[in-house]
């Protein structure tokens, strides 16, 4: 009896809803699949919108109907494997584009009986179908004969997204009066056209180039830069001095792009620095930059540039005493207070990365070497590459006009 009871308990445990549910591994796989689907749908919907815009643009150029004609949006299907959420988005976009473009002569109309499942019994038998598949029944239901039905299908075929559309006249013969297939590849960026101002791909490209040209090859950057100097290495320096304080610079000048793509740019800037009782300075700087991300600057995403250049700086004031090879000590500071403040002129070479946002705002960071101070006891190196020590680490914020 006890054994039977145990067996029943075991059977209950095996057949319980918890036991029948997916294992954690299966749940994780399903969750990963859903995440992948959501990510794909996110990428696909812009390309699908682009194809719909192209479809409506084609109707604008060459309308299927001579006069405004009521059309039922009979069916929108999306790539197999993606959810119905994408279908709803595509359907809404079709409606939005057609509403904004009455010159397509396609007037979307609401027809619940067209998309409903209808059952019709007659002498030939009982037929179950969608309303638009059986126009004779539709006519009996609401007199919609004579309208047209629009079917749209979007499918992912390898790297291609293919949109197929057809218009069917809702008469008993259901003739297809128009059909079209459009394709775009995953490597093609979406044109993101405005529904009320549709353009061809060529026109959209022309507008993009015009936008690039509007900015012109020359921009005026205004840059705020801060240079910090490395502490001298106590291990290698017998009598380490004090490194200079961080130096702040305000710079401006011109920046020139070699082409509209701005793959290569160069800049010439002058700058000044003024901190009362500490230091003042003037500088001139030249820099060449190379775009690392993409083949042309982007209007929509950040661009990363690698730059290299050189600068000449002249600085004076108490805080510039460290720009010398001998150790800068407290005695030297007292001596400077009573006499002429120290003045330094030096050259520097720098290498860094510049992140540009819309070619308007830039954030950059660079390493700088000052050859005349390579043996200075007052500063060390942040890093050394091929025997060259970089004593300065700089950060910049740039606004371009």
């Amino acid at each position, binding site marked *: 009896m006890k054994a039977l009871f145990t067996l029943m308990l075991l059977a209950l445990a095996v057949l319980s809803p918890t036991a029948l549910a997916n294992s954690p591994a299966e749940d994780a796989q399903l969750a990963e699949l859903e995440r992948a689907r959501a990510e794909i749908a996110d990428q696909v919907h812009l390309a699908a919108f682009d194809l719909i815009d192209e479809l409506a643009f084609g109707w604008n150029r060459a309308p299927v109907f001579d006069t405004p004609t009521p059309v039922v949006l009979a069916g929108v299907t999306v790539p197999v494997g993606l959810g119905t959420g994408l279908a709803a988005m595509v359907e809404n976009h079709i409606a939005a584009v057609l509403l904004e473009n009455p010159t397509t002569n396609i007037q979307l109309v609401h027809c619940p009986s067209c998309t409903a499942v209808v059952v019709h019994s007659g002498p030939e038998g009982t037929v179950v179908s969608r309303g638009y598949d059986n126009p004779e029944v539709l006519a009996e239901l609401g007199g919609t004969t004579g309208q047209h039905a629009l079917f749209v299908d979007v499918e992912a075929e390898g790297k291609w997204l*293919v949109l197929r559309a057809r218009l069917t006249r809702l008469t008993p013969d*259901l003739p297809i009066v128009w*059909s079209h*297939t459009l394709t775009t590849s995953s490597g093609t960026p979406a044109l993101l056209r405005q529904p009320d101002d549709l353009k061809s791909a060529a026109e959209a490209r022309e507008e993009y180039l015009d936008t690039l040209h509007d900015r012109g090859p020359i921009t005026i950057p205004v840059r705020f830069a801060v240079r910090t100097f490395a502490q001298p290495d106590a291990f290698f320096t017998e009598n380490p001095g004090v490194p200079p304080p961080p130096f702040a610079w305000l710079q401006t000048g011109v920046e020139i792009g070699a082409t509209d793509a701005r793959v290569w740019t160069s800049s010439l800037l002058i700058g000044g620095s003024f901190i009362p009782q500490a230091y003042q300075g003037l500088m001139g700087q030249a820099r060449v930059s190379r775009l690392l991300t993409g083949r042309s600057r982007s209007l929509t995403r950040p661009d990363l540039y690698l730059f290299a250049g050189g600068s000449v700086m002249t600085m004076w004031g108490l805080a510039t005493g460290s720009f010398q090879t001998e150790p800068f000590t407290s005695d030297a500071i007292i001596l400077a207070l009573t006499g002429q403040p120290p003045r330094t002129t030096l050259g520097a070479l720098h290498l860094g990365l510049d992140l540009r946002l819309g070619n308007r705002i830039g954030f950059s960071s660079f390493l700088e070497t000052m050859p005349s101070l390579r043996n200075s006891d007052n500063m060390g190196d942040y890093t050394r590459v091929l025997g060259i020590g970089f004593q300065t680490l700089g950060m910049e914020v740039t606004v371009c006009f």
Partner: protein
Amino acid sequence: MQIFVLFVLTLMATVKPDPAPGLFRTKTASAELDCEQLTVARANQERPGQIGEARPRGDYVDRRVVVCSERLISHGVRPVRDEAILSTLDARADEVASAAAALGPDLQSRTWLVETYYPSVQVASKVSFAAKNSLMEHGLTVSDRTPILGFGDLDVITRMPAEQAYPAACKRYYATGSLGEQDALLAVVSRDPRETILHAGLCSRGQWKWLR
């Protein structure tokens, strides 16, 4: 060490990304790429500025261009068989429509109906859609009408082997008037769950014929 780092950086900058699986790309990542080989001239036409143009007197080396794009839907998201059909749907639909359009002038003047027999309803409707559009592109008259059979016919035909079922269905379509004198039915059929080939059959005036 620094020279080694510089060497690696230079190597990374000069070596072109290879779509084949290897040191920098896994097999899974390579499988997600859809690549096609192009001539230098065509690649220049399609992607100006990315590939150096051929020299007027020809290149000294044999240059080949392979253009790769990521697949829109990764492997594993859809059933394997559906993926095989859908990823080449356009070409398959065009093949079927070309076979239909190549028939005699008598058939070209008919009104074409399309039916697809495939286990997945979603995939079947997409195949039908593509086939209809391809037939339209070949200049044929196409209808959205679906030929229907009565319950009794269906009950008998679905019990028959495939070799007999399609001709029998075709005869019944014609006999019941579901397919008229001026209609031609293009049936796109998946005959075996293990194959990814789509067969095509023609039903005209009660006569069945396999096209491919």
